[in-house]
């Protein structure tokens, strides 16, 4: 199948280091499509695909821009602190491929 553009975002070097205490938002050129496992994200500018593999992650990404930082978003979503580092890694990978941008 053709998922050449679906290379995991984590393989790309991050341009802006991900700071989970700074504000981030979903890039305006990214569209999300709900899927049974979470959502498929597509970036119209760099034409990459990403799989958001949990409904919690989808909700976080969608509301990121409304919070002063990812950490604040985790807290607002009531996520167990033990899961924060996993979400942080997922968001860092999205930021590395420009799916998230500094707000």
């Amino acid at each position, binding site marked *: 199948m053709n998922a050449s553009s679906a290379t995991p975002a984590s393989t790309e070097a991050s341009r802006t280091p991900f700071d989970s205490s700074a504000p981030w938002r979903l890039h305006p050129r990214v569209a999300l*499509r709900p899927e049974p496992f979470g959502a498929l994200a597509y970036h119209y500018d760099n034409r990459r695909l990403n799989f958001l593999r949990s409904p919690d992650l989808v909700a976080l990404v969608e509301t990121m821009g409304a919070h002063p930082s990812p950490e604040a978003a985790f807290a607002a979503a009531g996520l167990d602190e033990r899961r924060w580092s996993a979400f942080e890694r997922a968001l860092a990978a999205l930021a590395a491929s420009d799916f998230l941008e500094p707000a």
Partner: protein
Amino acid sequence: MTALTEELKLGLDAPICLTWELTYACNLACVHCLSSSGRRDPRELSTDEAKAVIDEMRDLQVFYVNIGGGEPMIRPDFFELVEYATSNGVGVKFSTNGSRISPERAVQLAGMDYLDIQISIDGADAATNDRVRGEGSFQTAIDAMENLQAADFGPFKISVVVTRENIGQLDDFQALADHYGAELRLTRLRPSGRGIDSWHELHPLPEQQVDLYHWLLAHPQTLTGDSFFHLNALGDENLPGLNLCGAGRVVCLIDPVGDVYACPFVLHDDFKAGNVRDSGGFGHVWKASELFTELREPQSAGACASCGQFDACQGGCMAAKFFTGMPLDGPDPECVSGHGEVALSGIGIEARPQSTSNHSKPVPVALGATRV
């Protein structure tokens, strides 16, 4: 195998990789054409019907579509449809033999957004290429590349089907791509369409597959459309990609008359799920057709179940098995452990399924034949 692969096997709400062949008409007659193209089909979707299909793609959030043919630029409404798609949020990548990319057309293409172009060649020199794609077709493709470069189109893609005859030229293809600032895309030769017969002479030999695997590992930026996952059984390292047969799960094909098939390489009645003209349109076929539902159910590993490499190779490509007359739940005909060869040697020519969608022109198409 990742959990993601398992999830994808259950199917998605819309395809990730949707190929749309706009026409069966083609000025070339490549010996391995997966859609046996040549003549236009009079039942071809009209401009309005094609736009309705694009409307559905937009509503289903199909983010991009791979347009092919035949030669898609032959359709008089080609630019109209591409513009309609991209302005509706459906990006377009189209495959062409380059024959219609004149300097003027190249300028027009360079001015369009969300458009990728893929120019097909099957040899790094005219002799190798033209044996498969026909006299003069190499120069035609090179002219198109020159025109795109002169028009400042930006990076386009050079798409190569890897064969026994061109596999020694991988570095040359890369050099050609580098020369044009293009990306190289290598895909697997499947025994589909006119390839049902030519595959047997053209598919890479076992030792060539080993070279290919190592070349791909050394050149991870190469685009492959996840073609070569059967090679993962060769070593500990997997090629980048999703590593599964996506047919009817994440992949499908809409043909020029609107028939929906499980993948571009299975244009055969057995893999036809419905038609976009049916009530419910494409969305209904994708979500509810009997065939796609079946393909999303757990598949048996069959004779591969006892192979230690099954996780890495998934038993290979369904189309390759089907059109060589092999069982779908057994090894790929190009199984790197040699199980395919053994099975294949026991299958006669008469056991190969015939194409049920043949639009070849009424001229014999043979490897290296001079065409008029």
